[in-house]
C-alpha cells in the first residue's frame, strides 16, 4: 500500500493561540470565571444579610479595598464582554421569520442592546 496519510496533531492545551478568532472565543469563555466569582460574592452578601446588620456592614467594609476595586473593574469588563458576545449571536440561535422574510439580524441585536440599556438604567437608578 503506497498510501500513508499524514495526520497533523493539534495541541490540546495551546490550540487557541493559533488564531485571533479562537482567542476571542476563549476570552468569551473565561468570562464565566468572573461571573462565577461575582455570583458567589452575591451569595456572601445574601448570607451577611441573613445574619444581621453588623455582618452586612462588615461585608461592605471588606469590599472596600484597592483589590476589591480592581477585581470589580475586571469583572465589569468581563461581564460586559459576555453580554455583548451573547446578544450579538441571538439572531443566529433564535432567528425570527415574519411572513416570508427573516427579521434582519441587526434589528434583533439592536433590540437586545436597547432592552439591556433600559434594564441597566432602571436597576442603576433604583439602586443609587
Amino acid at each position, binding site marked *: 500500500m503506497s498510501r500513508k496519510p499524514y495526520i497533523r496533531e493539534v495541541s490540546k492545551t495551546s490550540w487557541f493561540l493559533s488564531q485571533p478568532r479562537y482567542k476571542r*472565543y476563549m476570552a468569551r469563555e473565561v468570562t464565566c470565571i468572573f461571573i462565577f466569582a461575582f455570583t458567589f460574592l452575591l451569595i456572601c452578601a445574601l448570607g451577611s444579610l441573613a445574619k444581621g446588620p453588623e455582618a452586612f456592614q462588615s461585608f461592605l467594609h471588606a469590599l472596600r479595598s484597592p483589590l476589591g476595586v480592581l477585581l470589580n473593574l475586571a469583572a465589569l469588563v468581563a461581564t460586559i464582554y459576555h453580554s455583548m458576545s451573547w446578544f450579538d449571536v441571538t439572531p443566529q440561535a433564535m432567528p425570527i421569520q415574519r411572513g*416570508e422574510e427573516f427579521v434582519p439580524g441587526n434589528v434583533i441585536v439592536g433590540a437586545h442592546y436597547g432592552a439591556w440599556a433600559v434594564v441597566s438604567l432602571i436597576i442603576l437608578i433604583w439602586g443609587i
Partner: protein
Amino acid sequence: MSEERQIQLEVLRYNPETDSQPRYQTYTVPCVNEWVVLDALNYVKENLDPTLSYRWSCHMAVCGSCGYMINGEPKLGCKAFIHEYGDHIRVEPLANFPIERDLVTVVEDFIAKLASVKPYLIPKEDKPISAGEFKQTPAELKKFKQYTLCINCMLCYAACPQYGLVPEFLGPAAISMAHRYNQDSRDGGRDQRQEVIATDEGVWECSFVGACSEVCPKHVDPAGALQQVKVASTIDWYKEHLMPWVKK
C-alpha cells in the same frame, strides 16, 4: 485591471512515498491581479511543476473541491483573490483532515458523517408522483433555504477547533444538513435525525465557537443551525421530562 505582479507561492508538499513529513516549497508566479489563488496553482502545475497535486473543478465556487488553508485561513482557492493578499501567499491542505498528498486531504470521515444524518427527505405523508407536488409557500421555502446552499467544501470543519480536538464530532455541515431537512415543511423525519444529531458527539460537542460560520463561503451559517438544534433539543428534553403529559 490586468497588471502583472510576481508573488511567492509557498505550498505545503507531502508525498507519502518519499516524505516522512510535509515540507514547504516556494514557487515564483507571475500573476494577473484578478486571478484567484487557484489560477496561481494552475500556473505552477502547467508551467513549473506537474507533480503538484490538488483538487479543483468548477472554478466558480460551487463544486466545493478546492478548499485549502490560505495564509492560515480556510478558503476556496477559486474565490481567494490574489489582490487581497500581499506578495507572499502560503497554501496548505485544509486543517483537521489527514493529508493524502500535497494539498489533497482524506475526506472520508466527512462524507460518512454527512451520510449518517439521513440527509434526505423523509416525507410526512406518502403521495404518489401523479398527485402533484407537495405545496410549499415561499415563506416555508425560505425557512430552510439557506441550509440547502452548503457545497460540502468542509471549510467549516477546518475552522472548527472542536472538530480538530474531538474527531468524533459530527461537525457543522452535517448537522446543518440535518437541520435543513428538519425545517422543510415537507419532511417528517426529525425524530429519526435527532437520534443521530442530538447526541454527545452530535450537536453537544459544539461550544459555539462560531468559526464555522465565519469561514463558510456560502453563508450557510452552520453555527446558527447548531444552536437552533440545541434550543429545540433542549425544549424536547424539558417537555419530555417535566411535562410528560404534553405530546411531542
